[in-house]
């Protein structure tokens, strides 16, 4: 394979149900990442080393066919087999019964901290949607002292605006969830933009009553700087192009800790708002998440409780958003440190709060084994993963318990999120009637 500089990478998306057009505006980029859509849903991505030149339609077609022949073929076959299935009159009865549901209203909750440009882009993309369902926008200012957010919100008119001065992403999102009035509350980050059709795809699985949460893919909108490319190469925020459905069986099937971190993130996640008033589930844990010493994992813990309560989480990669990775990132090592720390804090939380002993297996067996295996592979020259990064992960793991203790202490000082209970949700939702059983 001919390779060039690792970055910058141009990011483009291509729809393959119509004849593909050449990509001509990638001058200066040694490489182009093409996200491939087929009738609106996402199939996968291919990288083309274009060396700063344009990409002809033939080359684009060949690269896509070469990289994604199987998924494209599978989808084509699924479409046909599905059509045949739909044609069967007996099959129709079940689906129509399932689909009978009350129209939903949706609130999008955006927590922001003094990033007016990101927020403006985000709100513009939401305003550009042509939603088929009622849509409410809620912006939570997590750093009111910054002062830049209210002006942006005013530009967009009909947006609910609230302030949560207590620092912490979980505090901010919780405040937004409580202020929202929709049946479904969608959490997105302020640095994402949404494509057409996103909303409909993200809420579609809620037609099934046991689904309490739907997450979607998070794709990079630009990979122009080294920081952005490194972040994406380390895993980014996306969780792949294959749908995942996690229910109570999935939750129980794991002998080591449940990998809820594979199910998505609150950068793009929709929740049935009734779960926040369910005593077994509740709101995001304030001690976890960005803005706290733990750094992350508030979403994975919420997913954990949803699954434990017997509900289902659907990861639908077709409901993707575009995320603008930070142009200037604090070093990758810092980020990896933070992830490892948050991960341990999450494991300890499930152990302490939920009594899930699988966390111990993860902490005392799986994680050390992963680190040892990675080191061994590296020393034998079979992997590219640098040793300093492995050391960073180990250090982050060791720092986890202390971080969790400090975060808990801070939350005790700041107090819990307010839990107001608007009548519209708790009484009328068809979900709460059946969900307990």
């Amino acid at each position, binding site marked *: 394979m*001919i*390779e*060039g*500089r690792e970055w910058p990478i141009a990011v483009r998306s291509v729809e*393959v*149900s*119509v*004849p*593909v057009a050449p990509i001509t505006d990638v001058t200066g980029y*040694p490489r182009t990442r093409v996200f491939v859509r087929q009738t609106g849903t996402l199939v996968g991505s291919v990288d083309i080393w*274009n*060396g*700063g*030149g*344009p990409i*002809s*339609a*033939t*080359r684009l*077609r*060949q690269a*896509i*066919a*070469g990289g*994604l*022949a*199987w998924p*494209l*073929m599978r989808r*084509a*076959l699924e*479409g*046909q087999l599905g059509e045949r299935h739909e044609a069967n009159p007996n099959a129709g009865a079940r689906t129509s019964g399932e689909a009978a549901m009350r129209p939903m209203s949706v609130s999008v909750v955006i927590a922001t901290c003094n990033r007016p440009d990101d927020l403006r882009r985000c709100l513009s993309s939401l305003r550009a949607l042509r939603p088929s369902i009622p849509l409410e926008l809620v912006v939570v200012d997590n750093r009111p002292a910054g002062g830049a957010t209210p002006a942006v919100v005013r530009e967009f008119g009909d947006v609910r605006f609230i302030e949560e001065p207590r620092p912490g992403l979980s505090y901010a999102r919780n405040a937004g969830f409580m202020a929202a009035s929709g049946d479904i509350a969608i959490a997105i980050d302020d640095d994402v933009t949404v494509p057409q059709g996103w909303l409909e795809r993200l809420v579609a699985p809620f037609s099934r009553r046991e689904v309490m949460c739907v997450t979607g893919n998070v794709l990079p909108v630009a990979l122009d700087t080294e920081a952005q490319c490194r972040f994406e190469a380390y895993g980014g925020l996306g969780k792949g192009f294959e749908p995942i459905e996690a229910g109570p069986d999935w939750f129980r099937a794991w002998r080591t800790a449940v990998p809820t971190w594979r199910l998505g993130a609150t950068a793009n996640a929709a929740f049935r708002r009734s779960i926040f008033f369910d005593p077994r589930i509740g709101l995001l844990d304030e001690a976890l998440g960005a803005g706290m010493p733990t750094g992350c994992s508030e979403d994975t813990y919420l997913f954990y409780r949803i699954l434990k309560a017997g509900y289902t989480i659907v990861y639908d990669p077709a409901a993707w958003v575009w995320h603008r990775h930070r142009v200037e990132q604090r070093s990758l090592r810092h980020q990896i440190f933070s992830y490892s720390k948050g991960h341990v804090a999450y494991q300890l939380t499930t152990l302490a709060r939920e009594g899930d002993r699988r966390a111990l297996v993860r902490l005392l067996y799986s994680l050390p084994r992963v680190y040892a295996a990675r080191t061994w592979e590296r020393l034998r020259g079979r992997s590219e993963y640098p040793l300093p990064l492995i050391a960073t992960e180990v250090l982050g793991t060791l720092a986890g318990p202390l971080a969790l203790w400090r975060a808990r202490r801070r939350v005790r000082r700041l107090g819990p999120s307010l839990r107001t209970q608007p009548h519209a949700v708790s009484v009328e939702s068809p979900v709460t009637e059946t969900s307990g059983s």
Partner: protein
Amino acid sequence: MKLISAELSRPLPAIPPCSIGEQWVLVRLHGEPLGFVTPPAAGASPSRLSALILDRLSFPIVRHLVGDGMAATGTLTDLARIPRECPHEPRPALRVTVAVCTRNRATHLRTCLDAIQAVEYPRELLECLVVDNAPEDDTTRNVVSRYPGVRYACEPRPGLDRARNRAIVESTGAIIAFTDDDARVDPLWVRAVAAAFEEEPHAMCVTGLVVPGELDTPAQLLFERYGGFSRGVNRFVFLADRQEPVGNRYAGAGRFGTGANMAFRRAFFDAHGLFDPALDVGTPTNGGGDLEMFFRVLKEGHALVYEPSAIVGHLHRREYRELRSQIENNGIGFYSYIVRSARAYPRERAALARFGAAWWWRWNARRLLRSLAGRESIPRDLIFAECVGSFKGLWRYGTSRRRLAGEGES
């Protein structure tokens, strides 16, 4: 035995038994080569051949069909029924000159011109030109006169690159496609070359797949094993990154293709000069003119496309002795090209020197060591010949230059 070509959108042929050498089947779909299969020497029926093909080449078939189907999603049954025509058939629009440079090889030339006559391309857009290089008699002229529509030009001074330059001067096409007199072009060759130029407007050079024309003698099989000319069935677009020396990644110009199957836009020669007359067959360097031009295309910031659908069958040397001298000449030609490019582009010198040394170690020295350890199937004298040739190549370009200067040409 000739190389057999099997086109999947047509009924498969039966493979006859083969008495000498080996037989390979080049499998193609809508003209695109998918790969080779080697049926047993006893031959194969069409159904046996199709089983072999599906065994080896399912994925390339699926990949091609998915590429075709991207515009119109086919149904399951349609996928199994391969359409006779490719939906992406390009319309020929460019005027192409096919240039054959030859020297005293009338028998080879006849086969070569027969193949060119069979090319499927609008006649009004096709020109065929034979350049006779320093002929000793009139045989070539007489052969050419028997082919209507083929032009004859004579380049009296010896040197393949001089003959190529004569072809460029004499030609009228926007594209000049070169092939050798010992090559047999595929009927779709010109169409594939022209399509690649149309699809990649920034490409200045298109090379293609060179398959063995026959595999009858041990020497011919050995040449394929030694490395051959085949560069795979995947299309590549090479374009150098402007921010680093081109030689860092693209000095190994042999992988882009070979002079038996290369085409350029005339505009490139207008802007960046003709072939270097001090290089290639007929001069002390014995080769490297094609490689130097590939490197020049990339160095000047243009794209080079390797288009496997543009297929040329090449008649490898039949005798072992000829093979050995060709392999020595490969070594000489390659290092002559390295020296020439280092002289022409001072900023590439370090990169080219690094590559030249690394290549000598990787390709020559390591093979030689393996051979000494008895773990190499290629005859040692071939490897040794290329090792020696590589050293000769380091000063042959200088010799060639001085000789040109002596003849009063720079």
